[in-house]
């Protein structure tokens, strides 16, 4: 049984159809990366799985449990299995770094602050941040460090499934590679299932077991990461080589 199973998921905003029937399986313990250009529906797909958006039709199953029809209070149990690394980090700027990392434990799982604190520092150490960073405010950190803190927050409550939303966007190539390594390490260490979305091919190659390509709200290709260069799919070829010419036409003149 796949850990996450999407079947014909659709979502529209007004007249704009963003997801046109996504079908995707994420096997347990594997890292699946969904690649695709801006505006193809990657983020919307992720938000539908997280329950931040409600799909118009289709089914989303986590461990075989249909989640699109769950009540909010039933959903909370499912949410406890999730960790998420947001694109911009989404750290709480009103709290110091260590409280950010401990947040899921203290507020979500009702662990005492005293018990959560050492766990938070341990998670910070895992992403290579020293003790004194814990007392700082998130706004005092560089972009790369914020990403690390966000990663520490995502893994601190030991989730079964971790989502990565464009984990390397906005980072320099070296910091991006450090983050990629940390992602691979922490996912393997937890034995977690990972679902990432990105348009950074270096990142996708590094962290993926399986790559799927999304285009115009549909999965157009999927296969093992090692086969991405021999996909035989024109859309995939155009994307991974970053060519302006090809079957994918980017909207330039109109929104």
């Amino acid at each position: 049984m796949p850990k996450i199973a999407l079947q014909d998921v659709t979502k529209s905003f007004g007249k704009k159809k963003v997801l046109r029937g996504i079908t995707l399986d994420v096997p347990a313990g594997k890292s699946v990366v969904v690649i695709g250009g801006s505006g193809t529906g990657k983020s919307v797909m992720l938000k539908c799985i997280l329950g931040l958006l409600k799909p118009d039709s289709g089914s989303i199953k986590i461990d075989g449990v249909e989640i699109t029809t769950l009540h909010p209070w039933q959903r909370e149990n499912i949410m406890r299995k999730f960790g998420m690394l947001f694109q911009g980090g989404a750290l709480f700027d009103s709290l110091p770094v260590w409280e950010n990392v401990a947040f899921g434990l203290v507020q979500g799982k009702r662990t005492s602050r005293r018990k959560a604190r050492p766990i938070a520092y341990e998670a910070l150490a895992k992403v290579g941040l020293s003790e004194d960073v814990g007392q700082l405010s998130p706004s005092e950190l560089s972009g790369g460090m914020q990403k690390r803190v966000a990663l520490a927050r995502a893994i601190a409550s030991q989730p079964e499934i971790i989502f990565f939303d464009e984990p390397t966007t906005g980072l320099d190539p070296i910091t991006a590679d450090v983050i990629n390594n940390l992602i691979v390490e922490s996912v393997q260490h937890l034995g977690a299932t990972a679902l990432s979305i990105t348009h950074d091919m270096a990142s996708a190659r590094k962290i993926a077991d399986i790559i799927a390509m999304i285009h115009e709200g549909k999965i157009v290709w999927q296969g093992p990461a090692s086969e991405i260069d021999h996909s035989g799919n024109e859309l995939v070829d155009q994307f991974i080589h970053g060519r302006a010419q090809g079957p994918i036409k980017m909207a330039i003149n109109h929104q």
Partner: protein
Amino acid sequence: MLGLASVGRLSIVFFDIVGSLSKFFVQSVLSCLAPPFFARQFGRQLWRIGYNSLPVVGLTALFTGSALALQIYIGGSRFNAEGIVANIVALGITRELGPVLAGLMVAGRVGAAIAAEIGTMRVTEQIDALVTLSTSPFKYLVAPRILAATICLPLLVGIADIIGIFGGYLVGTRSLGFNSAVYLKNTMDFIQVDDVRSGLIKAAVFGFIIALMGCYHGYHSAGGAQGVGRATTNAVVSASMLILASNYFLTSLFFGT
């Protein structure tokens, strides 16, 4: 036909807002009543909404009470009723000006801050992050603010009543030549429990409105910095309008007819 279409469009927008506001209202009230409660957040909001608003509300009350004393003296002297200053200042401040002006000042100060903070959390995905960390944004963000504002506003208005009356007393005794003991006696004899109580109940309603509008507009903000700016403006304007409108209805409810 064009006119009809725009009327229809406007109606849809209107009912859309009424609908989402009602839903937000119910969700907020429910999250104020059911556990889990976030005591730390609540304490923080009490401090920020209540204590930090003291200077603004106090100064507003002081100058309003003083100006009121002067105006009533000038008006009253036209028909030889200068002696009425103490009574009218007490009545005007406790029933009307204390709650309304404190409400409007706090709407500007706190309503804007709430909308900007929650709006920024929305556009930087911090609210989504809360959800992924199994924490309800309604319980963590909205409920503490609404509870704190509803409790703080009556306290602030109670203080504003005292300071406002004191402002009238200062002007009355220092520049209008009233005897200090007589002024105080007039105030105390004339003022009734109902005057103060109705003002404090109004204040609690205004506090609720301010926090609700701040949270609602912040929570639904979209579109980056501009969206947060719009949310802040909408929060202050809608809170102020609702305060003035509900003030009229509450007044007519309290004092009959």
